[in-house]
């Protein structure tokens, strides 16, 4: 009797695991299946297409400026990450290692900026972008994305900076090292793993951004991937090229999934450092 109950419990648990896995993976699986279908095959519900059509993957590059969109996204997201990390390292050193008057209000202010609804700065940012002559260019996006990547990188790097051992710093001070030397030559090498995590999370945030990209770009060639996918349309309003859209979706998603799976553990620590240790 007891044995049977235990077996039943295990079976229920196994079922739970299967249900969770199916729930999280099915939409992506379905996107892959749909991306391999063309024409009328799209409108049949089948677990795997009888004749997988790979054309969608080629068509998305020939019928749409999708290669250009991908390139835009890579450029914008990378520059934003590099600038953010560059600025955040010294800021995090100051906030994490030096006690000074006004530190706590500053930290709270930086945290508050990361909670801004982007819509609240949209009109002011639009004016700034036009005034700088950046409308419909990639630097407009790089500039505006700093709004959310910079507070995030500063915040997370500060929590990592705090955890570094005090003794290292004391030894360096004894040797007469300036704060700049301590920050760049003592702490920076130790922060490398944290930089990878923070940079990756900032990259994903910039890669996914939609509102600014939608508002500050106009031409198809200047669009980033999310905007391109959101606005992808067919010959007529009623005929959406679902096969193409799903192919584009899979192309954008696969690299992200690979990155996330490689850096799994680090991402978890970065996310919790960003959210809970507030």
């Amino acid at each position, binding site marked *: 009797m007891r044995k049977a109950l235990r077996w039943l419990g295990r079976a229920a648990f196994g079922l739970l695991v299967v249900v969770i896995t199916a729930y999280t993976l099915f939409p992506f699986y379905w996107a892959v299946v749909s991306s391999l279908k063309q024409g009328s095959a799209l*409108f049949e519900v089948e677990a795997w297409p009888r004749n997988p059509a790979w054309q969608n993957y080629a068509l998305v590059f020939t019928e749409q400026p999708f290669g250009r969109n991908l390139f835009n996204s890579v450029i914008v997201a990378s520059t934003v990450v590099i600038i953010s990390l560059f600025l955040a390292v010294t800021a995090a*050193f100051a906030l994490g290692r*030096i006690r000074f008057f006004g530190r706590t209000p500053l930290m709270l202010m930086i945290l508050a900026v990361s909670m*801004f*609804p982007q819509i*609240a700065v*949209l*009109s002011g940012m639009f004016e700034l972008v036009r005034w700088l002559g950046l409308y419909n260019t990639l630097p407009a996006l790089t500039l505006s994305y700093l709004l959310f990547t*910079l507070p995030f990188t500063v915040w997370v790097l500060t929590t990592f900076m705090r955890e570094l051992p005090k003794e290292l710093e004391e030894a360096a001070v004894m040797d007469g090292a300036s704060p700049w030397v301590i920050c760049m030559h003592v702490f920076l090498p130790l922060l490398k793993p944290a930089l990878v995590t923070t940079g990756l999370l900032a990259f994903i945030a910039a890669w996914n951004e939609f509102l600014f990209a939608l508002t500050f770009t106009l031409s198809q060639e200047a669009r980033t991937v999310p905007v391109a996918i959101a606005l992808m349309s067919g010959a007529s309003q009623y005929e959406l090229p679902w096969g193409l859209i799903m192919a584009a979706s899979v192309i954008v998603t696969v690299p992200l999934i690979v990155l996330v799976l490689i850096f799994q553990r680090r991402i978890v620590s970065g996310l919790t450092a960003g*959210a809970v240790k507030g």
Partner: protein
Amino acid sequence: MSVPSGMPATTTPTATPAPPPASVSQLSRQRVRSAWLFLLPTLVVLGMVAGWPLLRTFWFAFTNANLSNPEPPQFIGLENFATVWDDPDWWQSVRNTFFFTGISVTLETVLGMMIALTLNTRFRGRGVLRAAVLVPWAIPTVVSARMWGWMFHDVYGVINAMFLHLGFIDAPIAWTADPRLSMAAVIAVDVWKTTPFMTLLLLAALQMLPDELYEAAKLDGAGPIRVFFKVTLPLIRGPMLVAIIFRVLDAMRVFDLFYVLTTNSSESMSMAVYARQQMFEFQELGLGAAAASMLFAVIAMFTVVYLVLGRSAVEEAA
């Protein structure tokens, strides 16, 4: 560029022993000065991309700024706020946003807790499950909206096909066209996409709990449900509340899901979609700025709650 001026890149190491007290205060003053120099570039950039645009938005909210009008905007007082206040579409967007936030965050918390508890037990394939759970989080919001939009397709969507097959419905449903159903669709996508975030934060909290507590509870003969409500839940309350507020803040400013997934009729808009529509589709920059300022005020309130809760949670943990 970010190298603070007046800071020698290298200093000659002098073999001085512990510095005397007088130079300690000098040293700390020098450190405070360098702290501000180190912060300067970040503060300048944040002032440019956050402070200035925010102030300009607040200013536009009190003007007749219009994108099609090249004249400099005129101050018109609270007129824009009054117009937004009297607009039934605005209140519909407010209801939509609050309804969306309430239901989504509740579902995400319950579901996230279930998955976190599952992941917190030892079993074969736990690593695989954790990886699988992370996948929706990695997919860009717009892409998930499009994937689900296709699954919700009224004629060819797999969800209608499944429901028909199982006999839940006897005719296909136009999920994203009907405002009431499109809300369900938007919530479904948001829950799918952001439950992983909740799961990760809750799992991190669960893994900090000491094993002894559970052994003690087991010795007392408490069942798993009792243990959850009497031991686990009270202990992770702090991190859980912080995660919930974090998600609430994120859900309140929702834009892309509504924009991509619904038909954007006035009945199915979020507050952010309403504000952007006023600004750029109707070119009423001032009106949109007023709506955006009101959303900002709501979120600012929640942010204050977050900061207070977050700090007390940290103090509890310390």
